[in-house]
């Protein structure tokens, strides 16, 4: 009972302290380290290697922000979060930003009081079937047994899709991706459905990936992006424009290979100059150094380089750019102008 009173007192003190806390940017600078929330492990997006160094596509975003703010892409404390703890970790201030393949939805943005700063991966729910099944389209799946993770939006999307097309299916509920993988390989279900990036990663772990095909239908929108808390727009701007810098760099042809050369002196392209800080005052407007974007891009390369290194076609996961190509290549990536 005494303990409760003690916690109660601490809670009051804590609320008082948190309302009085300074801006996130000042906190991060004072700490010298960016606290970035990531998954506890998702193939290609975030996982520590044998030496404990975090790698992955989401990790690349964290490192870019750290490089932009602190000038050091290793000044990141990666805080692993599960699907259940991620939002409270962000809301309570344990982490400064969350880059954990989180779908941007209305209620998360508005009701949970977060601010999605952009989209770093356009995902969508897809289907995987064994090649032997001879199915070319998801509309041919009438009467199929489908492995599906319970309690996720994928379950609802699946029901909608089958009802809209007037076909039936039999769900095989599973708890985790690992369980689904085992069930699917054992033949307990004809079809496995989850986010397309997850399907590709799952297929890559099979003994014979070629025996399984991903169907062309994508039945839901899953825009994944980094997010920050409501209430500190300056910090939100920094994360947003760090991500935009990566995307714009690809569009402008700025890569980790040529960035030193391009950033050394003003070039013929004024937008590159503004981006890399050789012209204009963009860094100062964010409260950062002039070479903030240069550091962010140098951390792991531009968006395209990050994609290719972590999840692209030359990795075992082998994702095509698809929707995640630049708008100039028919994709959806479209960074607002740097001016």
């Amino acid at each position: 009972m005494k303990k409760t009173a003690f916690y109660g007192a601490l809670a009051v003190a804590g609320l008082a302290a948190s309302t009085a806390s300074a801006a996130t940017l000042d906190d991060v600078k004072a700490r010298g380290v960016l606290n970035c929330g990531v998954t506890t492990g998702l193939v290609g997006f975030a996982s520590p290697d044998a030496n404990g160094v975090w790698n992955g596509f989401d990790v690349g975003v964290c490192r870019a922000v750290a490089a932009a703010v602190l000038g050091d892409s290793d000044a990141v404390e990666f805080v692993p979060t599960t699907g259940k703890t991620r939002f409270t970790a962000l809301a309570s201030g344990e982490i400064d930003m969350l880059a954990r393949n989180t779908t941007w939805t209305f209620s998360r943005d508005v009701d949970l009081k977060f601010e999605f700063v952009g989209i770093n991966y356009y995902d969508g729910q897809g289907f995987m079937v064994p090649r032997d099944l001879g199915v070319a389209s998801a509309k041919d799946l009438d009467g199929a047994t489908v492995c599906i993770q319970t309690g996720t939006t994928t379950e609802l999307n699946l029901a909608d899709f089958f009802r809209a097309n007037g076909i039936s299916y039999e769900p095989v509920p599973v708890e985790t991706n690992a369980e689904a993988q085992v069930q699917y390989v054992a033949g307990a279900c004809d079809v496995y459905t989850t986010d397309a990036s997850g399907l590709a990663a799952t297929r890559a772990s099979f003994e014979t990936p070629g025996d399984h095909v991903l169907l062309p239908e994508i039945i839901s929108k899953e825009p994944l992006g980094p997010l920050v808390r409501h209430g500190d727009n300056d910090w939100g701007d920094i994360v947003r424009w760090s991500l935009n810098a990566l995307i714009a760099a690809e569009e402008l042809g700025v890569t980790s290979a040529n960035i030193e050369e391009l950033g050394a002196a003003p070039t013929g392209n004024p937008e590159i100059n503004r981006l890399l800080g050789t012209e204009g005052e963009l860094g100062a407007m964010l409260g950062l150094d002039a070479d903030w974007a240069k550091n962010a891009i140098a951390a792991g390369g531009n968006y395209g380089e990050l994609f290719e290194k972590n999840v692209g076609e030359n990795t075992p996961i082998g994702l095509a750019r698809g929707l995640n190509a630049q708008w100039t290549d028919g994709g959806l990536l479209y960074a607002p102008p740097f001016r």
Partner: protein
Amino acid sequence: MVDRTIAFVRTEDVPAMPPPPNAAGPVKWLKDNLFATPANSVLTILAILAIYMILTGTVPWMLNGIWEAPSLAACREVLNGASGACFAVLAERWNQLLFGFQYPADLYWRPGLAFLLLFLAAAPVLFFDLPRKLLLFTALYPFIAYWLIWGGSIFGPLLALVGIVAGALFYQRFVKSSFALGFFGAIATALIVWTLGGYIIPDGEIAEGAMRSVQSRDLGGFMLNMMLGVTCVSLSLPIGIALALGRQSSMPIIKYICVIFIEFIRGVPLITLLFVANVMLGYFFPPGSGVDLFLRVVIMITMFSAAYIAEVIRGGLAALPKGQYEAADSLGLDYAQAMRLIILPQALKISIPGIVNVAVGLFKDTTLVSVISMFDLVGMIRGPILASVEWQGVYWELFGFAALLFFIVCYGISQYSQWLERRLATDHR
């Protein structure tokens, strides 16, 4: 005349004949034990068949195991379609499985040493034939282990020790005159020593060198399971005894505090308590401060198992005949003496199997911390290792390894408890 001479008289014993082959030796054993009745025979054959099928599946798989490969794909290449385990994942991620992926690699000797010293510290508690002086080391062990695992300045653990010693001295000095004065005075003394010492000693963080500080969030692997298991079991036993006695108390406030605590904790799943520890307390404390996550989890698991142990011990207390309590009273013993000398030794002996049951369950429950993103052994497997590009898709090898480690510890606990029961068997049944 009939010649009555006897044709043959045996003068020595007939050598003993061996028993018929089906009445002795392995055949008889088989007949008695495996094929006694038709039903028995059928079951035997089915069992042999099942064992055979399991072995033909697993033995080649184990013997074919690959111990050196950089990834699952490389393993499969070496195996070339044959059945075989990919134990290479254990070899490559060995340190991560034992210590987590964030503990500094050059400091692995520190938790290793703490683990070895644990045996030395636990021995005099577990085996009471050993010299009692060894208990002195047991008393020091928590501070040594804390210092070894978390590192930092030695002054922190030293100050904690000094505070407790000061409290104990105060208690010894004043408990004769009044228990309440001794007890609460001791707590106050310890708090005063800690507060004053906090101002005097330098900041505990050390950034460099062999004893540099390690953060709690960097702990992981089987080390974390062991730490949680050992800490929580050793804390929850005394708290559980206190709760069990409190529940039988004749003082209504103490009694109802204990009853409500026990019933509330037993009515809530452990995983809920862990979420409270991780998530809810995060809202209460100001960002960046607050109680260490490891400590929060220890408090929650300890509360949980203490409530269960309290009920087990209450069962032991209830099993004692009323005559024992009356005998203690008639000898003129006060409450503390009666409990210490007569009631508890018997009640605890009866409760051993139940306590061990809770301890084994608690140790396995420490894997639940993986849901609040602490990387214990199971968390390491489910998170970082299965999510790496190299090793996703390896299940049997990793979870088999985890099962083996847990089996060794739990089987050890259960063997010890059986030894203890035999050792304490003083009744004549």
